[in-house]
């Protein structure tokens, strides 16, 4: 039985959706340089997880706008970081892929976050803090050797490490079937690491399943790999989707938004309009801000 999504969760989901859509527009109009990776289709993962990770440390990757928004709820600092405007948590120096804010850090270099999270988890275990370090990674990132070095240590030393795998079936242009032998489950098993796979987009369901497991790694530390079977609705970054129309249609069919709208179109559409307007106001406001400034305390006067 599908659970009814709360207003708070619905707003958060649609905030992330609206933010990512607005960002693609900003890129299209040339207001943002470089690159960006949106989490369209994957918004529910951090929305479901965040309430269970409030006091924990979260390590994101290149596709972490949703991870950030689910945690902090306020889009303005994130947009300021991406646009290099005043009020950015890292003065725009970090940008879309390198964000640092209370208990949250991301890196665009694949795999490294898992090892860094392992170090944090070692600290939490040693100090008996009942906290965990959670690292988000994609399916493609399981190609990087550092992931295995970290998993080995985390299991060997029984560290409270949560690896959240957003398996969206593709890494840039390469389908998972073309870059992964075996499975995430069997790789976790090779190290004796506990594993759970989730195909649902139902937030209540996800929390019911994971809540007890996360509680447990808090009280009796050990690593846990959770794999979400999810979809990437947008391009890898911008305009670089190699999937054909049929594959994209299949992905869109799996959009959590479709399921929610089917259940309660009026409520969902109203929330969607509300969040779009909210993000539009944020975009207007942040755009008008002065450029961000930063002077290293170590810099010569």
């Amino acid at each position, binding site marked *: 039985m599908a659970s009814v999504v709360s207003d708070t969760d619905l707003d958060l989901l649609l905030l992330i959706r609206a933010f990512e859509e607005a960002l693609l527009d900003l890129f299209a109009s040339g207001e943002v*340089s*470089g*690159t960006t990776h949106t989490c369209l289709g994957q918004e529910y993962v951090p929305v479901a997880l965040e309430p269970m990770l409030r006091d924990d440390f979260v390590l994101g990757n290149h596709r972490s706008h949703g991870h950030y928004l689910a945690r902090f709820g306020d889009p303005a600092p994130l947009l300021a970081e991406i646009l*290099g405007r005043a009020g950015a948590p890292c003065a*725009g*120096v*970090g*940008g*879309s*892929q*390198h964000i640092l804010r209370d208990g949250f850090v991301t890196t*665009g*270099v*694949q*795999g490294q976050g898992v090892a860094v999270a392992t170090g944090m988890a070692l600290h939490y275990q040693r100090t008996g803090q009942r906290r965990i370090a959670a690292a988000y990674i994609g399916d*493609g*990132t*399981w*190609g*990087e*050797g*550092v992931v295995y070095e970290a998993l080995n240590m985390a299991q060997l030393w029984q560290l409270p490490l949560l690896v959240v795998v957003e398996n969206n079936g593709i*890494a*840039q*242009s*390469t389908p998972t079937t*073309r*870059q*992964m032998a075996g499975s995430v489950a069997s790789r976790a098993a090779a190290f004796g690491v506990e594993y759970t796979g989730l195909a649902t987009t139902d937030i209540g369901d996800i929390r019911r399943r994971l809540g007890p497991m996360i509680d447990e790694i808090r009280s009796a530390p050990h690593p846990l790999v959770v794999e979400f079977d999810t979809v990437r609705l947008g391009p890898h970054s911008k305009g*670089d989707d*190699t999937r054909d129309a049929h594959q994209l249609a299949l992905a869109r069919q799996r959009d959590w938004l479709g399921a929610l709208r089917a259940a309660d179109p009026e409520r969902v559409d109203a929330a969607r309009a509300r969040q779009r307007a909210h993000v539009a106001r944020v975009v207007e406001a942040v755009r008008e801000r002065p*450029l961000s400034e930063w002077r290293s305390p170590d810099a010569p006067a």
Partner: protein
Amino acid sequence: MTGQAVTSAEKAATTLSIGKALNNGLRRAMEDDPKVLIMGEDVGKLGGVFRITDGLQKDFGEDRVIDTPLAESGIVGTAIGLALRGYRPVCEIQFDGFVYPAYDQIVSQVAKFHYRSRGQVRLPIVIRIPFGGGIGAVEHHSESPEAYFSHTAGLKVVSCANPNDAYWMIQQAIASDDPIIFMEPKRRYWEKGQVDTDGEPYPLHSARVLRPGTDATVVAYGPMVRVALDAAAAAVEDGRELEVIDLRSLSPLDLGPVYDSVRRTGRLVVVHEAPSNLGLGSEVAARVTEKCFYSLEAPVLRVTGFNVPYPAARLEEEYLPDLDRVLDAVDRSFGW
């Protein structure tokens, strides 16, 4: 490798962008030698993020243009194994900042195999790295790691700066029996120029005088060659003739043409995007000082990126050497 592919490469072979010239060069190398393989992340169907391998998987098949997992260390390690078994692998590292996971393989294996096997083993591997800034990207998409590799004995490092060199140097690198780190000036991929597909290629490990001049020498490589040439064109207005030399080979360095030039001009400015601290410019300055001490009218000056991590996109124009900074250095050299 269809006949059609050959003609399409040849038809386009007059004015090409650097990116397309590399693509054609790779294509020709694959046609010439069935042992040439390409491997990397998204190099197949996508043709690489910069489309340098565009169309090659379609024409040469998945056995020769291999989409790999995200595994830089594994890509280079696998290339070593293939090279040990007679192949000529060309690895694409997607961006400069992603070569570091492969650094161990490159420094500990690729660079040393020949030496430690008493010369019995040769590793004809090319590791292509799009490098440098100027495309408005983040730090790990904009770095200039060439000095790390140039510092490592056993590796050869080259960088092309124009379409003709792109076309020929990639083929020469693939034909070389030694491992070559091939640095591609990513911000210049779209710049066009003449490619002479029938001519004789210039030797791979040779520096080249691109513009003769009498008053000062400007040495650059990769993406900064364009800046040096523009500076030389602008300097004419100040009544100065700058000699511009493209290093082309960063290891081994071919400084003969630089010494000759400095003995005539007495002044040298070295330009690169990488920070000055222990960069290629330091080595050039040291060697020129050793060889041309009595010819120098001023110290060798360096125009480089700063000794900070690569900055956010909005600041990169401040970081990257440009025409004004080169001309300013020339002025300072004359003011000495």
